[in-house]
């Protein structure tokens, strides 16, 4: 094989487009982080990061062209992580005090955890 491999022009095509999209999303994420969007900043950044992660998994890790069994195996970890988040914040956000934590009173580092004070 030499530098004039006849198929090289095809090799770069689709992965190059995905690379450009990933870089564009990085620019978008970095740019949006500078805009004062309130709570939106804390949601948008990981959401765009997650979109980039999905693009890498779907195209670069070839899930798009893999069998259903492989896709299920790949999703297994993500599904359980999602379940952990759902259970934790499903509980937290329905507690009456969760919404009333004053920003000027951080809960970490200012007082002993309750189990240590009893």
């Amino acid at each position, binding site marked *: 094989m030499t530098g004039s491999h006849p198929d090289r022009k095809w090799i770069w095509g*689709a992965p190059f487009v995905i690379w450009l999209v990933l*870089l564009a999303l990085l620019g978008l994420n*970095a740019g949006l982080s500078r805009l004062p969007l309130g709570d939106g900043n804390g949601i948008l950044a990981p959401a765009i*990061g997650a979109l980039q992660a999905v693009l890498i998994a779907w195209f670069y890790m*070839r899930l798009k062209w893999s069998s259903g069994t492989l896709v299920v195996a790949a999703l297994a*970890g993500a599904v359980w992580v999602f379940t952990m*988040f759902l259970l934790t914040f499903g509980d937290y956000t329905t507690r009456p005090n969760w919404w009333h934590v004053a920003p000027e009173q*951080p809960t970490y580092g200012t007082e002993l955890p309750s189990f240590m004070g009893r």
Partner: protein
Amino acid sequence: MSGATLITERSWGEGDQEFRASLGMWVFLATEILFFGGLFLAYAELRSQNVEAFDEAGKHANFFFGTLNTILLITSSFMMTIALVCSDKGDRSLLRAMLLVTLALGVGFLLCKGLEYRSDLQEHLGPGRNFPVRLPAAQAFFAMYWAMTGLHAVHLTVGLGVVGRVWLIARRPVWPENFHRTLHVSALYWHLIDVIWMMLYSIFYLVGRAT
């Protein structure tokens, strides 16, 4: 015929060795996702209780090195994908070159990470006295930062060994029968390092920038 079509040329039947190797690697990667997932959950819980402190601490994370490293990793994943397509097409010289570039980008990531850590320590953002952020919970942000980016760097170092091994095999005049399989599962591991970094970048380097 498009590039996307070329990628699909090598179809995997459920019974063949390549499928089993991929399945094994994906199951392993699922455990890695769960491993980091617990840390992401811990971060989310701490941040939900200490939004102001985390936003304040996030301003001290090094945006330049974080962004540069993201570009390096995205590009390394691109190079690794090209290497895989080269294997599909039998383009050996380009495949070796792409693996070498992937390795160089990975080493570049670690070098930038080292410079970033040095800068962080000079700002007293590491464990110890003289932590510069007034809010106590900001220390939780940096505890998570050191733990998660450090673990990621360890994974990347392992990834360099994995890709380096494939590169050494690719230099042989005759490739072993299982070369494409080895390359594919190695690429999966390398890409996962990139996947995890996408999340780390967005939670450590972008928070608090607008406030």
